[in-house]
């Protein structure tokens, strides 16, 4: 396993699309953090995280998303999560972070 992160700027919708493929855990989250913060620094627009290929995430991954969200909120922007797998969705429910992030089907 490991993590591969695809990112893409959607000009029409003016959003970032972020596709983490694999596992975000304490080993891979530093590089995930670098990518996310770099995107936000480049362009502070909404970030859509497509969870289609994300099979695992731990608390450090949640932490990275929270720090990203903190930065984005300063500019009134958001992180929107889509296609999140049930096991990862469960983490958002447990931690109450489902009320902090926008989670779409």
């Amino acid at each position, binding site marked *: 396993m490991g993590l591969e992160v695809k990112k893409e700027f959607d000009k029409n919708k003016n959003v970032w699309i972020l596709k983490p493929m694999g596992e975000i855990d304490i080993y891979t989250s530093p590089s995930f953090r670098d990518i996310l913060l770099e995107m936000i620094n480049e362009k502070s627009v909404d970030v859509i995280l497509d969870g289609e290929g994300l099979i695992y995430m731990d608390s450090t991954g949640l932490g990275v998303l*929270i720090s990203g969200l903190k930065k984005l909120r300063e500019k009134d922007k958001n992180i929107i999560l889509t296609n999140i797998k049930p096991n990862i969705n469960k983490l958002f429910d447990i931690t109450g972070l489902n009320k*902090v992030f926008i989670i779409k089907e």
Partner: protein
Amino acid sequence: MVEAANQNKGDIIKLTIPAMAEYVSVVRLTSSAIASRIGFDIEEIEDIKVAIAEACTMIIKNGEKQNIDINFEILADILNISVQAKYFVCQERDNKVFDVYDNKSLSILIIESLMDKVECESCDGIVCLKMMKKLRVDV
């Protein structure tokens, strides 16, 4: 279908890894394999895996210069897990999260939600997180 029947009460499996981020994936796979062998269902296997990995994550955040000892005790209808290390600062659960950006107890929150019983003990300077998951027996 040849499947697990836990006649073997009290079996113990031990895993020791260096407290390094890159070995948490090994812990996850070992934990899944044990939980699966004992007969937990897919969601429970995931719960056990996540909880043990979070315990390791808490330890590794305190530095990478020690070992993590994980003990799995297999009882008739219970899996007891202990995760221990010398420099283990166990988070305390914080129920009042006023500021969503300022809570430092994600790991323990997750562990307590997923396991049936969680205790943090300390003896001789070794901190030990004990967790228990019950096997729901279908009739």
